[in-house]
């Protein structure tokens, strides 16, 4: 088991990317007894890399380590004050047991289109630090994913840190629509922020990856008047591509995304308000 980042990276390089890094294990261990084929893979246990455990607040960013858990952020009052949508997201991941083992970096690396942590981090313009034998590179989280479970991260790279810029946020909102009020996988997820960098609208479970919704962001930046959920339909159509799956339907996803967007924004945008029927 490696105890330094250098050791971990040289193991990854030696095994030519065949080793699977494991931190909290909350994704990799699901249905473990039945996934016997995967028992034969090589796993790189990251739990000894103490240097990557803590998160810290620098002058201009929150830095989340590769081993920082959801629960670490839930317990940090600074996070609740400055970036409550991180805490809101963390609170909806599984139950407390999962929150106390699962890591933010693992949430990124698992590359699920339903990832709750990724949703909030992307709306906060997070930057992912990838370390490999060839050095360190930084990738904007909203540019990391290439397609379903496809990432710009190479197999010999580790996510070592996530940097979230500290900005003045005039508005931030996290909404998770699941099939029940706890322990649910997201059917529609939305994280919305507004800062001097403009509006950010990010959707989960609406496309092959967690995805920024640029058409909606433009509508908001341009203050395009909207008088009901239907006003977002065209932008939703161009931003995301929901499907029918075992959890819900494309129709439900599109329709509920529009309604949630409308009601969340109507609270703060005077140009978005009900004209007639509001639902």
């Amino acid at each position: 088991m490696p105890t330094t980042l250098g050791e971990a990276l040289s193991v990854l390089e030696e095994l030519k990317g065949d080793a699977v890094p494991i931190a909290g294990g909350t994704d990799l261990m699901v249905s473990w007894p039945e996934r016997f084929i995967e028992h034969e893979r090589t796993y790189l246990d990251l739990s000894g890399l103490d240097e990557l455990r803590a998160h810290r607040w620098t002058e201009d960013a929150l830095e989340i380590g590769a081993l920082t858990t959801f629960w670490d952020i839930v317990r940090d009052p600074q996070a609740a004050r400055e970036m409550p949508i991180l805490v809101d997201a963390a609170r909806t991941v599984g139950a407390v047991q999962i929150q106390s083992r699962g890591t933010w970096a693992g949430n990124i690396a698992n590359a699920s289109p339903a990832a709750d942590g990724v949703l909030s981090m992307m709306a906060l313009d997070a930057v992912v630090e990838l370390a490999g034998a060839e050095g360190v590179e930084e990738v904007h989280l909203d540019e990391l994913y290439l397609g379903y479970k496809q990432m710009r991260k190479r197999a010999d790279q580790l996510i070592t840190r996530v940097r979230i810029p500290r900005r003045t946020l005039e508005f931030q909102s996290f909404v998770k629509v699941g099939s029940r009020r706890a322990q649910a996988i997201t059917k529609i997820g939305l994280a919305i922020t507004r800062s001097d960098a403009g509006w950010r609208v990010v959707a989960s479970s609406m496309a092959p990856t967690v995805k920024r919704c640029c058409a909606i962001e433009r509508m908001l930046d341009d203050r395009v008047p909207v008088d009901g959920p239907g006003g977002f339909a065209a932008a939703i159509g161009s931003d995301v591509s929901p499907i029918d799956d075992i959890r819900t339907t494309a129709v439900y996803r599109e329709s509920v995304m529009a309604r949630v967007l409308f009601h969340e924004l109507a609270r703060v945008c005077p140009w978005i308000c009900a004209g007639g029927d509001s639902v």
Partner: protein
Amino acid sequence: MSTPLRREGLDKLTGRERYVDDLDLAGCLWGMTVRSPAARGRIREVRFGDGVDWSEFVVVDFRDIPGPNEIRLIELDQPVLAADRVRHIHEPVVLVAHSSRTMCRRAIEQIEIVVDPEPAVFDFRVEPRAEQVQHDSDNVLSRISINKGDIEAALARADHVVEGVYETGAQEHVYLETQGMAAWLDGDVVVIQGSMQCPFYVLNALMHALGRDASGVRVVQSSTGGGFGGKEDFPSNLAIHTALLALKAGRAVKMIYDRAEDMAATTKRHPSRVRHRTGVMSDGRLVAQDIEVLLDAGAYATLSSVVLSRGIIHAGGPYACDNVRICVRAVLTNSVPFGAFRGFGAPQTQFALERHMDVIAQRLGLDPVEIRRRNLICDGQSTATGQVINDGTDRVALLDLAVAESKFVEKKAAHVSFHAGSAYCRRGLGLATFMHGGGFTGSGEDTLKAKLHVGGCRDGSIEVLSAITEIGQGTKTIFASIVAERLGVDASVVTIATPDTARVPNSCPTVASRSAMVVGRLLERACDDLRARLGLTPEDRGERVQEAIREWHVLHPGEALLGKAEYERPPNIAWDEKTYRGDAYGAFAWGTYVAEVEVDLRTCACRVLSFHAVQEVGRVLNRTLATGQIQGGVVQAIGWALMEDCVWEQGAMKNTQFTNYIIPTTLDVPPISVTFLETPYAFGGGGAKGLGELPMDGPAPAILNAVADAVGIEPVSIPLTPEQLLELLSHDDAT
């Protein structure tokens, strides 16, 4: 009566309780099942892959069954292992065993069942085409009808005729402990230990399939982590499988299903469709109930005929109506067989009825409370089967109590002002009045004649010998309390024997809300018999009884002292199985449940905000356990009503994980207020009526009635998922 702590509670809380998976069986093998990939067809070949050293495995197929290849239950239609034909996906065909669980998992993936497909049928609501017929001329496995009065004349003279069609979905039991069995040979005796509700069902099924008499088979219940009916019939199948592997291996074998296999391959609640055509006068009086019930039985008969029987008897509900016609059918489909589940047909038929009552009220412009008040059975009036109710319960008062306790009227007013201030939340209130018969339906108890023994031990302690199983409902605690009360002894001197067919008499299965009511009464009579054998009078209690037991053993060394009882039909009870007329149950429990919901119009999610359960259940034997039973049933029914959606593909359930088969969490459950009215039932243990299934009947219609009230639509099917509600609201509202 005192309310002692649950006997097995501490062991369960601390993790000390040992379930079948925890049993330490030296050198045991693990057994697993290879299942049909096809919904219907002929088995052409079973192919064993090359990559496995099959000599390391014990392999069993239909040719290894010593007796008939039949699972003995009501019908003999279900094979132990498919021989030449399959009728549903996941039907067991081959069993394998190995000392390594992982090796077993690998091996079963290397066995291919090749099936030549035949036309299958999946929608029970559609008449089968000729090539889909697999039973008689129409796939109907069972049918029953009830006729009371003159239905056509009554419909003709009614002021209004209101029609409706209602549907309910399948439901998975989700007992915490999955199905599991262990089998080994003790000399020539096949011993089975495992998770089950009904040891003698398992015994009878084993005797039949293994071709053995009772001396060659012994069945012992292990600590059972929940059943809800799912461990009524299915454990017989698994016990035979495990026994076959153990016989062939000559070693102990365990078969423990993982969650996905358990959900995919075991029984569920029967899906239903119920049509109502109701003649009603302008004042809301019901004059004609014309009801047609259809159940999806799945691929084999299992218990469908008796589920149908309980379903039909409850279909007319707790209302006095002089003209009733009910026709019910269970039809074969090529789905995984449906089986026993808490409520046993009554939740399905009463869901339809109680939604329909609100629809009638809506059409006639009547208050939903008032229309029920006008029709509830009063003592002296009769149910659909002509059973005259005379139990001293005032059902109208029960309804009024529920309305008062739930602050029904006040909340309605509060909702109006809530809506004025909410952009997208709508609240509503709904109620349901219903009943549940305790014990076997009709003449079942009389035919099966349950038996129970009470042993007086040498040290003066008392042992209850019965086949009733503790499955989380608290039977051990209840039985000890009943003995304590009857004999005046402390409950701590009473032990409850493990249900072991080599030791206990056949008290019949742990089903039908019958343990406390029917078997509890046997327990009292066995206590009386014990006292009589000791030459004591009913006035002799406590230490006098224990002293007499000790003295008896001094005088009869080496002998067993047993007080015995066998079921006796209560007087003035008569049932005609042919016409379905008469006293269907010894006693009914009665309930009125009120649900308050909030609908989020953004997500179309329904949340139950508050729940009031008011019921009359005879005497309450243990308030904590009874309250827990009611609350647990309400939670299970909230899941059935709003969330638990079995997704089917070719008759097999697709969503077999907890991430996609959604049951309520504590956050999805409101505070559940439980109120009991108590009218002791003279022929029930301690005065109790049946209680365990009652709370499954009322919540679903109460919740849907509340949703209808909140958003002004008429939902007719469950589960009412957000996706379903979105569709209803979109149709309803073109904007």
